[in-house]
């Protein structure tokens, strides 16, 4: 464990949501993730940072088994969600993904109406008993996604017609609509302009009240702005994990310091 004693006690008393133990990931013969141990807290924003190709996205995709869709990918070790191993044979990845929602790098709304984009998840999971129920879920989700006011008059317009930032917030609202417990975000702002980025970051901060949010980001400033915990990945290793303020001001590992000061990556 690279976890260092934290300087602030404010966030450490929260429950552990996801615990990863000795996780290894292989792409064919490539050892992409090496022996990662990390404990992700509930109601916290955890940022994964690191240079390109360091495995942070790969590790994120292990948390809701999105890597299952890649044939050559193999995951070893244990990842426990609320104490249950998500790689257990009995776990259906579909059920897992309903609990662990995901937002992707590029906004990817379905080429359907805004309403249908949000309603799709609740529909397939049977969360709404009636049309009125569904309407309520859609409104609630869009409000959570901080996009309700912009789209409430055109819920039946195509979701692909929105601007990039709106699309990404729509995707967040879509992820929220299935009532997940964890929200994974894979560089959610990398395709957005600074204004849209600001809106999404603000939203992420609000989402912290209800979910455990894990965000992969290229931008150290973003990690510093939105996260309470930060994990630094380098060449497939989890180099350092701790309070964001501590990682950025007083890193323990020399590699972390080199990366933060811009000497590597």
């Amino acid at each position, binding site marked *: 464990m690279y976890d260092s004693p934290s300087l602030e006690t404010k966030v450490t008393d929260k429950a552990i949501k996801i615990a990863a133990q000795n996780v290894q990931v292989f792409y064919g013969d490539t050892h992409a993730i090496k022996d990662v141990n990390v404990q992700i807290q509930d109601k916290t924003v955890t940022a994964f940072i690191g240079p390109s190709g360091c495995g942070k996205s790969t590790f994120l995709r292990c948390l809701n088994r999105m890597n299952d869709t890649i*044939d050559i990918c193999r995951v070893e070790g244990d990842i426990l969600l609320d104490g249950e191993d998500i790689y257990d044979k009995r776990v259906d990845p579909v059920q897992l993904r309903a609990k662990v929602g995901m937002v992707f790098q590029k906004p*990817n709304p*379905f080429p359907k109406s805004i309403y249908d984009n949000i309603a799709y998840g609740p529909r*397939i999971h049977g969360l709404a008993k009636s049309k009125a129920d569904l309407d309520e879920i859609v409104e609630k989700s869009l409000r959570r996604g901080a996009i309700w006011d912009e789209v409430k008059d055109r819920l039946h317009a195509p979701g692909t017609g929105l601007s990039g930032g709106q699309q990404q917030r729509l995707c967040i609202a879509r992820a929220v*609509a*299935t009532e997940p417990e964890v929200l994974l975000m894979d560089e959610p702002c990398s395709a957005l302009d600074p204004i849209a980025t600001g809106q999404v970051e603000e939203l992420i901060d609000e989402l912290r009240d209800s979910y455990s949010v894990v965000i992969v980001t290229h931008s150290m400033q973003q990690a510093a702005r939105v996260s309470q915990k930060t994990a630094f990945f380098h060449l497939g290793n989890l180099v350092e994990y701790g309070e964001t303020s501590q990682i950025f001001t007083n890193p323990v590992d020399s590699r972390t310091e080199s990366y933060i000061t811009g000497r590597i990556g």
Partner: protein
Amino acid sequence: MTDATASGVPAGKHTSGSLLEQSPRTKRRNASEARFRFYGMAAVGIGLVFLVLLLIAIVRNGVPAYTQTFLSLPIELKAEALDKNGNRDLEDIRKVSTFGYNPLLDEALLRVVADNGIESDYSGADLRKMISSSAAAQVRDYVLTHPAQIGETVEFRVLASSRVDGYLKGRVLREDLERDKNLDAAHLDIIDVLKDAGAVTRTFNWAFIFGADASESRPEQAGIGVSMLGSLFMMIVVLVLSLPIGVAASIYLEEFAPKNRWTDLIEVNISNLAAVPSIVFGILGLAVFIQFMHLPQSAPLVGGLVLTLMTLPTIIISTRASLKSVPPSIRDAALGVGASKMQSVFHHVLPLAMPGILTGTIIGLAQALGETAPLLLIGMVGYIASNYPDGVASGFLDPNSAMPAQIYEWAKRADPAYYERAWGGIIILLLFLMTMNIIAVILRRRFERRW
């Protein structure tokens, strides 16, 4: 040609000199580009010229098949010839074969010739060479359906013989008739007079589009309608079988199947199947469907099965291509909100791939519609001379022909009148293919990618 560096211009000169004048190197590059453009335009031009020539040839040769020459003939339906007992009993009337009608036709022809003031020493049988041998059957059919008309004089529009028809279309010349046993120049003189008198007319020939094939000696009677029906039945079989099988196979291979040596092998073989000559499918169909499974010969069902084998690779390849072109982000999005693999495919990927799938299917069908060689091998060249519904061309298991096979049959026959009909059939076939391709284009436009 495009690589100017290969030429022997000394290097290092481009830094100096005015921008307002082209360096020799630039000139050379521009000249080579201009040359290439010219080659490209020439290639396109040659292609266009051939296309135009083809279209002109088809229209010039094929359009005459759509008109046909008729002779108006008032025929006295004599009771003593048609109903000897005089009791109008249908059984008795039926006993008179078409031969029994020939004297009536002869008489009517002689009268028409005399009425128009033509001097001719032809007998009635000689004059009968001017009209189609289908005329007697036409009159007999009329009498059988209208027995009450016996004894009256009825005006018939009988088909002129193919020689007369060809003469009026400019296909048969007087010189040609010197060696012709069927018709003499004197016949043509009679036709000229009758034409001026309005008894011989050329009108649009619906029977060519909707009619059945006719015997070798009656090209004027032949139509493509029945083989169109055969093609339709085959296309139904092809569509019903190849669309679901093809789409299911592609979805499985593209979305669900593991990528290993077996699926690679299958993939390569599907691509290879698309390139297998159609006649190979024909002999396969002959061996499997007819000789082994004992399905009837000449049946649209067998034709459809063979064409399905041919169309499947086309549909699978185009379906896989359109599934592949759906961005993976859509699949991720669906999986990310907890959709199962199948839900993500059927709710999101398939609808987006639909225009491509439909286009591929229609192109595949169009290909199958024009396919001839395998049909020859399984006997889809049935000679059907009677029209639906009393004919045999009524179902999937009844003998039939198909449009391209019918065209091939016509082109094979000796009479030049059949050659004309082969071209006419080509026009219909091309119209069908064009319609299908236009539908494919419209579908593509209508469901243009929306992401």
